[in-house]
């Protein structure tokens, strides 16, 4: 083929296939990252992306996998642009696959536009600093790890823990004090089971959020490489809703662990040098290209708040997936198997949990002047309680000092009254903070060194 293949032309036959990758030789004028349409011998249309171009060959990653492709009868067409997906207002209330094709049986909605799934980098100068706190009605979040509009706050969970319930409750209850407008919801299922997807779908329907929600499903039985596309399609839609239409959008991405597994699968097939646990060295940059698609922009009314969910393999927070995620996101909510086993819902282990944007979203004029120092006091007291519990398990409760026993009382109250709440228990900031002072009651004033004397006098009635 003289002059090589031009964009838009179809190229019959490939030179190699391995895992999700196809290799084509003698092809020129194909751009890095370009979208390819692959037609299988049986006529099925598949999609792929160019991963590498060099003198010897070009490498195409096929999202649906290369099963049933033959070297001779497969045709590949290069489209001359990266993957674009449809976005539009009419997509609200609908269900799509990873590429934005409808899955709910209804006709294809009219798209307002098509956008590059990779998005574009927001200039840091144009970002507006997130400072509007969201009231989720959940005490351990609102009181101690306040979520802010434009933040990315993942839930670090483990298999079998109620992360889905918690995410659904946040979506159901999230509101801004004093604002009427609710949140739009963009949901991406990445390699999760039908049950999980259905749970969210039902939950959105019951709360009436489904009119303002879009679901993108790549379920566990769908091709794994398409998992790399599903969150990007969802975020492209979220960006359109937020920055073009001015909506406040909550994005739920579940499960990031499946996304990372797919990334490792492709990396291994390409023979790349692995870093920790076989994950590619660019795991950080790649996840950042998802998580950084959150925030607010000066002069645009909307916002994107991300709630990614990831299940920590073997409950290990130092595993590369939670580890790298924690370095990118603005905090994390960590769920505890131990609390869950004791029947505490939501089983949020507050000590390793964190909201980095909390300080600028709370305090006088936003929530209450005592919020920051009170939260710090709860952390200090609960950390000390945990230490005393360890001591008590060695020397027994009887040997503890009076003060230490008071700490244990605080710990009980904290877990049973403050942490625990029902699925439909929606507490205001005021109620959460009052409750915090209430559970601190067993401790004497002299132990409350994180709050000021004035705050003790004013709020510790």
């Amino acid at each position, binding site marked *: 083929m003289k002059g090589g293949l031009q964009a838009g032309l179809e190229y019959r036959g490939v030179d190699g296939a391995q895992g999700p990758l196809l290799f084509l030789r003698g092809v*020129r*004028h*194909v*751009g*890095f*990252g*370009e979208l390819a349409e692959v037609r299988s011998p049986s006529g099925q249309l598949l999609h792929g992306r160019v991963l*590498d*171009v*060099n*003198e010897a060959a070009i490498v195409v990653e096929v999202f649906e996998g290369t099963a049933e492709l033959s070297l001779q009868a497969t045709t590949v067409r290069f489209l001359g642009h990266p993957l674009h997906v449809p976005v539009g207002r009419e997509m609200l209330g609908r269900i799509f696959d990873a590429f934005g094709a409808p899955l709910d049986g209804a006709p294809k909605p009219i798209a307002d536009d098509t956008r590059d799934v*990779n998005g*574009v*980098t*927001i*200039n*840091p*100068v*144009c*970002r*507006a*600093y997130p400072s509007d706190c969201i009231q989720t009605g959940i005490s351990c979040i609102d009181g101690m790890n306040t979520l802010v509009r434009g933040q990315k706050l993942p839930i670090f969970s483990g298999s079998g823990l109620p992360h889905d319930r918690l995410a659904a409750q946040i979506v159901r209850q999230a509101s801004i004090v004093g604002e009427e407008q609710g949140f739009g919801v963009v949901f991406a299922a990445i390699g999760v089971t039908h049950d999980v997807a259905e749970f969210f779908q039902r939950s959105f329907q019951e709360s009436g959020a489904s009119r303002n929600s879009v679901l993108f499903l790549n379920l566990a039985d769908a091709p794994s490489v398409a998992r790399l596309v599903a969150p990007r399609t969802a975020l492209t839609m979220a960006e359109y809703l937020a*920055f073009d239409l001015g909506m406040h959008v909550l994005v739920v991405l579940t499960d990031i662990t499946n996304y990372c597994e797919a990334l490792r699968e492709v990396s291994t097939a390409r023979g790349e*040098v692995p*870093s920790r646990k076989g994950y590619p*060295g*660019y795991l950080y*940059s790649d996840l*950042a290209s998802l998580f*950084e698609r959150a925030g607010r*922009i000066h002069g*645009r009314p909307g916002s994107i708040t991300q709630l990614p969910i990831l299940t920590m393999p073997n409950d290990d927070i*130092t*595993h*590369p997936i939670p*580890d790298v995620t*924690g*370095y*990118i996101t603005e905090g*994390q909510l960590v769920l505890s198997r131990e609390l869950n086993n004791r029947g505490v819902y939501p089983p949020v282990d507050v*000590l*390793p949990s*964190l909201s*980095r944007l909390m300080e*600028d979203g709370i305090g006088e004029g936003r929530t209450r002047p005592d919020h*920051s120092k009170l939260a*710090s006091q709860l*952390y*200090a007291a609960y*950390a000390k309680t945990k230490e005393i519990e*360890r*001591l008590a398990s*060695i*020397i027994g409760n009887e040997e503890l*000092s009076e003060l230490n026993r008071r700490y244990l009382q605080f710990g009980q109250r904290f877990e049973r009254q403050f942490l625990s709440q029902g699925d439909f228990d929606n507490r205001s900031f005021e109620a959460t903070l009052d409750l915090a002072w209430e559970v601190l009651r067993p401790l004497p004033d*002299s132990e409350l*060194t*994180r709050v*000021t*004397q004035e705050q003790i006098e004013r709020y510790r009635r």
Partner: protein
Amino acid sequence: MLPASRRMQHCLVIGENDMTAGVQVTLRDDAAAATGPAIAGEVIAVNGPVVRASCRMPIGMSEVVWVGEERMIGEVIGLRGDNATVQVYEDTTGLRPGAPLYASSLPLHAELGPGLLGHIFDGIMRPLEALAAQRGDFIGRGTHAPSLDRDKRWDFDPVLQPGTDVRGGEVLGRVRETATVEHRVLLAPDMQGTLAWVAQPGAYAVDEVIATVVASGGSREVRMFHRWPVRRARPVLLRHAPTVPLQTGQRVIDAFFPLARGGTAAIPGGFGTGKTVTQHNLAKWADADVIVYIGCGERGNEMTGVLTDLPRLEDPRTGRPLMERTVLIANTSNMPVAAREASIYTGITVAEYYRDMGYHVALMADSTSRWAEALREVAGRLEEMPAEEGFPAYLATRLAEFYERAGYVTTLSGAVGSVSVIGAVSPPGGDFTEPVTQHTKRFVRCFWGLDKELASARFFPAINCRDSYSEYAAGLDPWWQEQGVSDWGELRERGLALLGEDSKLQQIVRLVGEESLPDRERMTLEGAAVLREAFLQQNAFDAIDRHSTPQKQVLMLRAILHYIDRGLQLIERKTPLYRIKELPVRTDLMRMRLGIADSEVERLDALLATIDAQMDALAQE
């Protein structure tokens, strides 16, 4: 592909060849502007940020090239025969074989002149505000803008007369860059000769000629800015041992693990342990003249946070907004990875430039791990043989080169200046045995290890006093003596000894509980608890607590140690410990960090008297 060692040799050779870069660069640039850059070759392979091209023109290592019709910026990192390997500082999606490659004849450089302070740049020194003005809210590809605003006019005030013999690095004139910082217009370090002409005082743009220098090679024009290759350290006359502390206002650092001006420090810590908040606090409160803050592979919102905070916060020394003394370099985690590698070098070049004017500069790099990972990613795409955890074998060399650019120096013009470097490290899994932390430890002399347990209890700064160290502390004692604080060394040693003893006792307490220890040892535990809560802990978000002057720190430390001394005396006389803990003055001690401002230190003297009064009363009983 060239092996890493050979590639580095190439870098060195280039370093010697372009010794006159400061000037030649300017001349060649003008020529290029007239004719447009020449097509030097065409792209033959693209793999993420790594592009290979076959060249028909000679091209140099470290040379800046423009790739594709969009003219994306890249740098040559390997040469073999006619093939050049280029790392591209922008997203290469859509780039095709056959696309043109343009040569610039310039090494990767920074423009150094007035107009850097108060602004934010990307990893290759493009001004982000100008990019926003050109392209809007999103960073497009192939956007070009000079680092320094060409339209802005600066009031130039010459200090030298024509006829003066000048050497590189000499101060030609002054410009008021911001209300806080006077910019000294420097002759490029590699120029010398006789000043033939100097412009009259007046307003000039940065690219206007403000002087001519005659040397044996002919006459050269001098502008208010010059360019410098970022990968090469700017020369100095002399290096000195660091003996002056960099006051950071952070008690645990200044009192126990102090950093000297011109020193190096590393802050390693897992996610959520407060690296970034600590770095931000240093950027806000360190008593440096100029701050260079590099956000390397970190969060976009964090850079926005810095951009929002600094213009609003007041410099305690000058009363002016902190932004006026700050240069920000941002390569957020979703910006191209190759520019992350460059950002560290552009940042330190800017820091050296202000040092050369005779300023004390503090540079924060958050995080050097992301920079190391960028090295790893590019090395991986070049299919280089990996060493530990996939990092290239030259990781340690690169880290050493970076940290060695810090120092307390006499500049070429004879002034005294310094660059202090504080690098955050983000070890995977919070494990300090990983390569970046380990190699960094070899080249820094101050180590502030952050601790997950402390962070969980929201005890900030979460600096772990057992792992941390400062090799500068002993050398700073004379400085404190000069300030009239004769007991600084002693206070520091006593404080550290107390914490050491405490950590030994805590091991016993964990097994048998505190109650079973004798009162004397329990008083040690009590003393350490007060030291931790009342002194080491510092709330970055509290208007009073976020900063403590050296004087206040010394008084606070004296008060706490005095409380412990007097308490131990009482215990010798069989006063029970609980009576001491019940004294109202204990609560005063615990709350002094939140209640007593820097300007009210006399209240700390009063606190000493109160301790004595209450202890005396207790002894009377």
